[in-house]
């Protein structure tokens, strides 16, 4: 508790100092565009480096890091954690909420049964599978269901 308070105070002080020192130079910093300037086709594997050669403004990261390869889609949580605003230039938040939402009415793969190309979790008989997968990698359950304590989970897990 004491450690937490000390850390919080230190973070707050550091943040305040940075904010004051930086205010005068804020206008020189660019913002990402609100949306992608050109329409991107639905279902298209996006190869950012086809058009972007340099670093993405505002992120200072090589744009090649964000190309939607199979590896990127599988590991997108790492990128979304630090570059949500870049994701939002092309994706509506509802795109993320198809899977990442605390209260789910139906499995994402059922809602989007007409889009088998989309990477949706828990396809097929996951009711049976989760009894195995939950023991193999419980953290993967927690990432989505942990803070939700979902209504569907408490049907059996109580």
């Amino acid at each position, binding site marked *: 508790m004491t450690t937490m308070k000390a850390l919080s105070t230190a973070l707050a002080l*550091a943040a305040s100092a940075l904010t004051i020192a930086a205010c005068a130079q804020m206008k020189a910093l660019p913002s990402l565009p*609100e949306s992608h300037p050109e329409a991107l086709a639905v279902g298209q594997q996006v190869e950012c480096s086809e058009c972007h050669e340099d670093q993405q403004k505002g992120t200072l990261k090589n744009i090649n*890091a964000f190309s939607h390869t199979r*590896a990127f889609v599988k*590991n997108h949580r790492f990128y979304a954690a630090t570059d949500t605003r870049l994701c939002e230039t092309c994706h509506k938040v509802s795109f*993320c909420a198809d899977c990442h939402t605390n209260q789910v*009415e*139906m499995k994402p793969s059922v809602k989007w049964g007409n889009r*088998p190309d989309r990477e949706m979790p828990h396809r097929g*008989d996951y009711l049976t599978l989760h009894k195995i997968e939950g023991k193999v990698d419980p953290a993967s359950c927690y990432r989505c269901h942990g803070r939700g304590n979902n209504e569907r989970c408490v049907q059996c897990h109580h």
Partner: protein
Amino acid sequence: MKRTLCRVFSAVSLLGLPALAGAAETSVDSTTILRIEQRDNGAHKDTLLPATEFLSLDATRLADGNLSFHFYGWGRVDLVDKSFNEDRAAGSLSYGYLQYRFKQANGDIRLGRQFIHDGINNEQIDGLSLHSDLPYGFGISAFGGANVHTTHIFGENSDGKGDGIGGGRINYRYGGMLELGASAVYESKAPTLLQHTNGNHRLVGGDVWFSPHKVLEVLGHTTYNTETSHIAEHSYLLNLKPVQRLVLSGEFNEQNDRSYQYSWAMFSGTTSPAAHGPLASSGNTSRNYGGRASYQVAKLVELSGDYKHYQRAIGHANRYGGDLKMGFSDNQIRAGASYHYLDAGPGFAITPNPSGSYHEMRAWGMYDSKSFTGAVDFINYLFKERVFNEKQAWEVVGSLGYHLTPQLFLSGDVSYGRNPDFSEETRGLIRLTYNTTFSTAGGKK
């Protein structure tokens, strides 16, 4: 107090609605789904006809052009028998917030119900969040408000989460090769539960992205639980791109079960641990690591193979396999196939099986044009040991759709399968989708 806060913030988020009339750009996505299902458990037969509406609305360039309103939620009505729990109707507001974007420094302010994905923080709040880049490569973000409560855990009057929550992240980026972040979340005291042992959700952590050259990238985070005074998680990814079309990935994840899942009331511990799930005996470490090779054979053809090893106190497991994804005719035709095998011992098995191993096979194809769509998706789980006397679980889904207008799309799915829970399972679904964007720019998906 918590209900009042939730209502206030939800009401605030809806204040944006009157302004929509003057919105420069408005996007509406509506998906209405009617599911058709019959269940017969021997004693009685239920006909289920739930109608669900998913509605998303984004109104941008309001007021001075920098204000926007974003909303997404769903509602369900059971037209015949109850489809779920005791209510014939249900709904959820996933998010509804006003956002003001500044033209400089990626600054923005969001007010209302929203998701927070920032550093180690993944929350849903009714409140306020702010973000800004700062000079010299620094950045800062903060959030605070009321937790969004979901459902009551069985036998409790709460979902186990505290009412108030706040946190933030500071970060530093250096010249396209390094980002370092430090973040924290502090939730007010978790409610005392009657049948479960719950913990406060209070974490600090650091994240890193390091790319000394465009062929190499290391990223990940470590979290520390201040309540248990223990590292909760290490999660790191290494990407190598030796040639343009090849990505080699290595991943390492380690969680201390107790510290990582400390605030997960359902599994963090109960008054009768023996009866409740695999995580009740917490204090163990879960570790997994593995790799993936992904190669883009052609512009729309990608082949990948992966391997992961899992270590837990209850045993070791290995998963390996590969998948292929293809596109033809300017991506109008898409197809894919995958195979994976999970080699898992008795510790992971469904009781009383001696093995948790199974094969997963999937094949799918779809046609997607401006006028109509069609899709077939087949997935099969082949168990090494029979589960409830069934050797496998399989499902095939067929879908057909037609664009009535460019904005209005009608589609229907039929699925049939067999699995350990149902000797036969047939489902039908009708989907009406309306997507329109009154926009001049490229827009979003």
